[in-house]
């Protein structure tokens, strides 16, 4: 492994860490514009929130167990790892062999289990309510996500995200009808997993509707900051997985250092467009009832299965 590859891997890891709050800020700003508001603090607001939280003193409940204290760090580590693993700039990085799609889903599951356990740890009503709702959404979203990833895997004959991206981006261009189904399913999963509007509202603390916010009510200061940062990293990870699966064009080929500036430029453009699209979806759709969520996720799963079926009908 060459020195420059390791250097690039480090750059990518730091870049996702620092750019993730910016993406959230961009989504929030777009949402404000579309709703006719000026937006509070512009795109840099998430950074200010994080700095503010890091400067505060943490308050812990008397009966908080060590699990409650370590969860923010585990969550942050999981999401950083996931976001750093996804190939966004180049396909031949030192961590590339580790980027298996099933492992990625596993990392998300690990984070989910810990945050749910920590939410129930204090023993408040809201915590366990949020944890149960999160698990309800999670257990429906996970198989759907796996089916989406399997659709891409059957096209490229590998579960390695690197191979998938290389097959889709660098081989001869083809229209994959199965990926159209997978894209719709993935969009629905992205909305559900990142607590965005049709499923959950990230900016409300209304007890009837909140899912993600209910779980982290007991956290404060640096713990809360890590969890918020982890959420932005999760959003970035999902967005980049979506980009890697459906619009990977422009990623630098293995060993092609000259392609990197173009790759960075295209990635920024795709993320900006994706963030604006997400804000648009959140603006035009209303939050659905919690009991509609299984229906929503069931549809996502069904579309992913249809994608797999269409692949065998049309593309072999």
């Amino acid at each position, binding site marked *: 492994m060459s020195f420059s590859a390791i250097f690039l891997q480090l750059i990518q890891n730091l870049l996702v860490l620092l750019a993730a709050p910016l993406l959230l800020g961009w989504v929030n700003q777009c949402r404000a514009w579309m709703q006719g508001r000026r937006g509070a603090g512009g795109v840099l607001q998430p950074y200010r929130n994080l700095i503010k939280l890091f400067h505060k003193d943490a308050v812990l409940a008397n009966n908080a167990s060590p699990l409650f204290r370590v969860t923010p760090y585990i969550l942050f580590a999981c999401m950083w790892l996931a976001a750093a693993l996804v190939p966004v700039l180049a396909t031949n990085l030192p961590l590339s062999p580790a980027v298996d799609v099933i492992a990625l889903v596993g990392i998300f599951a690990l984070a989910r289990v810990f945050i749910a356990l920590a939410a129930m740890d204090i023993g408040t009503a809201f915590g366990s309510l949020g944890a149960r709702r999160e698990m309800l959404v999670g257990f429906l979203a996970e198989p759907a996500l796996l089916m989406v990833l399997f659709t891409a895997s059957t096209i490229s004959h590998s579960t390695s995200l690197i191979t998938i991206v290389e097959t889709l981006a660098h081989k001869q261009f083809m*229209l994959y*009808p199965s990926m159209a*189904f997978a894209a719709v399913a993935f969009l629905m999963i992205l909305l559900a997993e990142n607590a965005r509007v049709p499923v959950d509202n990230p900016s409300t603390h209304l007890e009837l509707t909140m899912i993600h916010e209910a779980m982290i009510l007991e956290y404060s200061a640096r713990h809360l900051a890590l969890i918020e940062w982890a959420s932005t990293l999760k959003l970035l990870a999902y967005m980049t997985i979506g980009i890697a699966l459906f619009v990977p064009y422009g990623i630098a080929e293995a060993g092609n250092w000259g392609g990197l500036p173009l790759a960075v430029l295209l990635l920024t453009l795709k993320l900006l467009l994706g963030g604006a699209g997400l804000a648009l979806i959140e603006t035009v759709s209303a939050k659905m009832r919690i009991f509609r969520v299984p*229906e929503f996720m069931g549809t996502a799963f069904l*579309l992913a*299965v*249809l994608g797999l079926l269409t692949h065998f*009908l*049309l593309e072999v």
Partner: protein
Amino acid sequence: MPIPFSAQVINMCAALLLLIAFAMLSQRRVLSLINLFALQGLILAVSTTVVAYSSNQHHLYYSAALTLLLKAIVLPVILYKLIHKLDIRWDVETMFNIPTIMLVGLLLVVFSFNLAAPISQMAGTITKSTLGIAMATVLLSFLMMITRSKAVPQVIGFLAMENGLFFAATSATYGMPMVVEMGIALDVLIGMFILGIFFFQIRTAFDSLDLAHMEKLKED
């Protein structure tokens, strides 16, 4: 074996048709149903044009134009006017258990893919692999007609079924003879007018467009 690009476009259109069929199956609002139906007609016209171009079948251009005119413009406009006059623009249908309906739809898709596999192996057309999707669209529209209780969604299901049949004809044999196609187009148009009149008759008789009222033959 690489698939030619025109066939890829046709496959993509087929996949979109299937996606729309499922969207219609799960759509509660009448207005969105009509939008989806118009979109289905548009995609059908695009796919027929591509088939016509790639197979040099000139009569298919006329079918495509006819499809565009009738199914993407005239019929949706008639339906819009109808629901406007009937004042059911924002009608939301109560449907039970959409996930179950979707699962049945998935089984129908598997069934029709299996059924179409041997047929499409024998066909020599560029569109042979889309036959399974065409059959699935027909069956899904049929399922939609069965699961709806209101009159307008049932009619939309019927029209969507006709779209599926047209797509099946295009994919299996490059379309039916022009005379037959013109005849069917006229039938659908006239059928639409007659059904439109029926809507008003049903509503004056039962004060509702719910067809469950028609299951009873006499007043008791």
